[in-house]
């Protein structure tokens, strides 16, 4: 395998990109330092506020990030995620609040005095320097002797498989190669924290997936703390140990990718991460850890796990992932939640199909069904009357 970014054969039918995942250490299954009250965070944002004139980019953010985490700041453009990262790098000063790295207050330190290195969205490779000189730039600033720089540069280039390109200038490289040089430059100084600002935004989808796994490989082998800023929820889900979903300068939810997906705390998060169906309804009753929700002005009643602090009569939203819904032609037996509708659209996605079903009140619901289902069953077609069915524990009731 010479070049991991170009070696992937176009014939690869598996959706998993061809990467060196096999060589990486097994992901630490019990890795959850944020749950350990004895652990000190490596990065701490303390009531950080950033204003640009009248515009509040970051509103009172407090956050702990732990050593060896791959932490994602996720949100739409303008949500403050990049500002937060730039404050950590030292390019912006917080209007108020403190930033600590390993317990030391770095709020007033200049960028060149901070123990963090950043990979820039535009890569910001020095156009007049070779790949080697770019990667060695940070080490040169430390005053490291030339022969030691050469060893460290070699090491970084080997890790990112850049060895053939050391004498090239950035404009002689492809986008994927430039991206790897930028990453190599950011890790060459072996900083405790590497910041990544939309690091894969300029790559096409195929390359991006491979680069994501490469980022994880580098992060795991170097044992560095990575903080990534991205607007791509799939990317955040793939690479990170925890995700902070941001909106209008605030954290909406900070949790593991699994928790964010399975238990979003708001409609905003549910909508932002993956596909979701939201049923708006009123709480009818609450009993035994479950609530009954009246949907569509009495058209149907759904049972779902009760969230904390709901009371009858309250307006809530039942969030349901498309893959949690079973789609059938016959009315299911009692017990599960079910609602009837008409198939409007079918999207064939290879191993699965997506069905867009219109309910009696005009709402659209998305449901996924594996195409591996037995062929004896009559296929579901356009205009078919179908039933959508899901168990009470499949959805999450949201109160905001």
């Amino acid at each position: 395998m010479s070049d991991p970014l170009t070696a992937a054969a176009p014939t690869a039918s598996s959706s998993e990109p061809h990467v060196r995942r096999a060589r990486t250490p097994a992901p630490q299954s019990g890795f959850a330092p944020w749950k350990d009250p004895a652990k000190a965070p490596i990065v701490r944002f303390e009531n950080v506020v950033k204003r640009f004139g009248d515009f509040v980019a970051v509103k009172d953010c407090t956050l702990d990030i732990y050593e060896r985490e791959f932490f994602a700041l996720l949100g739409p453009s303008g949500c403050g995620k990049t500002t937060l990262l730039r404050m950590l790098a030292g390019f912006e000063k917080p209007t108020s609040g403190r930033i600590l790295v390993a317990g030391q207050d770095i709020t007033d330190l200049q960028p060149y005095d901070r123990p963090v290195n950043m990979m820039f969205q535009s890569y910001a490779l020095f156009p007049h320097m070779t790949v080697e000189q770019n990667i060695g730039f940070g080490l040169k600033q430390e005053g490291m002797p030339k022969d030691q720089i050469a060893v460290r540069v070699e090491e970084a280039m080997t890790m990112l498989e850049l060895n053939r390109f050391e004498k090239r200038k950035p404009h002689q490289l492809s986008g994927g190669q430039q991206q790897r040089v930028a990453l190599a430059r950011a890790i060459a100084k072996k900083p405790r924290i590497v910041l990544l600002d939309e690091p894969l935004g300029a790559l096409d989808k195929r390359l991006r997936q491979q680069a994501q796994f490469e980022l994880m490989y580098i992060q795991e082998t170097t044992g560095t703390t990575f903080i990534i800023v991205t607007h791509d929820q799939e990317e955040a889900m793939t690479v990170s140990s925890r995700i902070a979903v941001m909106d209008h300068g605030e954290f909406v939810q900070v949790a593991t990718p699994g928790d964010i997906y399975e238990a979003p705390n708001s409609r905003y998060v549910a909508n932002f991460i993956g596909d979701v169906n939201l049923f708006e309804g009123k709480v009818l009753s609450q009993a035994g850890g479950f609530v009954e929700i009246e949907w569509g002005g009495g058209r149907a009643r759904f049972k779902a796990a009760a969230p904390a602090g709901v009371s009858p009569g309250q307006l809530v939203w039942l969030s349901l992932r498309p893959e949690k819904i079973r789609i059938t032609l016959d009315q299911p037996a009692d017990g599960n939640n079910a609602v009837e509708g008409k198939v409007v659209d079918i999207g064939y996605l290879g191993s699965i199909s997506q069905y867009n079903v219109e309910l009696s009140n005009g709402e659209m619901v998305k449901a996924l069904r594996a195409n591996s289902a037995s062929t004896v069953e009559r296929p579901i077609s356009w205009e078919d009357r179908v039933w959508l069915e899901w168990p009470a524990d499949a959805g999450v009731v949201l109160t905001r």
Partner: protein
Amino acid sequence: MRRWLLISVPYLWLFFFFLVPFFIVFKISLSDTEIAIPPYTPLLDLSEGWAGIKDFFSQLDFENYRIIFSDALYVNAYGSSLRIAFISTLITLAVGFPIAYGMARAPKAWQPMLLMLVILPFWTSFLIRVYAWIGILKQEGLLNHFLMNLGLISAPLHILHTDTAVYIGIVYSYLPFMILPLYASLEKINPALLEAAADLGSPPWKSFWQITFPLSMPGVLAGSFLVFIPAVGEFVIPDLLGGSDTLMIGKTLWTEFFSNRDWPVSSAVAVVLLLVLVVPIVLFQRNQEQQREREAGR
């Protein structure tokens, strides 16, 4: 056909307004002076046919070039011109770089206005602006008046009609030619590069020498050539601001042509000046070419 027409326009222009005049000057430089109109000989007389042409060519020689290279006056004038132009270029670079840097770093909304201010002096005749410096630099001029009123000096400074005045005049007149290419190359530098340098541990002054200055090199070279090349042949500034001992080839050429009415020698002086400048002009063209290639490569 239309393509040929289009391409031929600049070539015809160059042929009639550069190549033909050059050959006329070159031919005169090979001639001898004579008190006549025009003041040189031989003249091509086609009425005598082939014999006339042969006679014409037999009278041409390189005697004037021998004179130029054997007479210390001309050699010194070339040397002095190159020295004055070189020092002026360095001063212009030192003055122009901070200005261009400030412009490139100014808020985007201001930049067109700042550019305007740099170009503004061109709205007044070059000659008038150089004359204005006489009023500033002379014994009882504005500068001496100002400095004496401040009490910084007790006797007026003798600046006008010295080499210093020539340097001031050249730096002042050619500053926009330095600033504009410098600004163009500084303005193109991605600010993220300086952030990246800072992020990797380089304080601002080190980033300047490691990132900003090397990346502005095409502008430094372009600006330097744009100042150096015309400054070598400059006539007006040394004539108006320089002293009797200020030796520049442009002035020598003028004297030879108008005072001595020695067209052949002054033509030879002009041809040699052109040859002297071919080297920097070729270097300048190469710099421009490389810059274009770099940009195409991006």
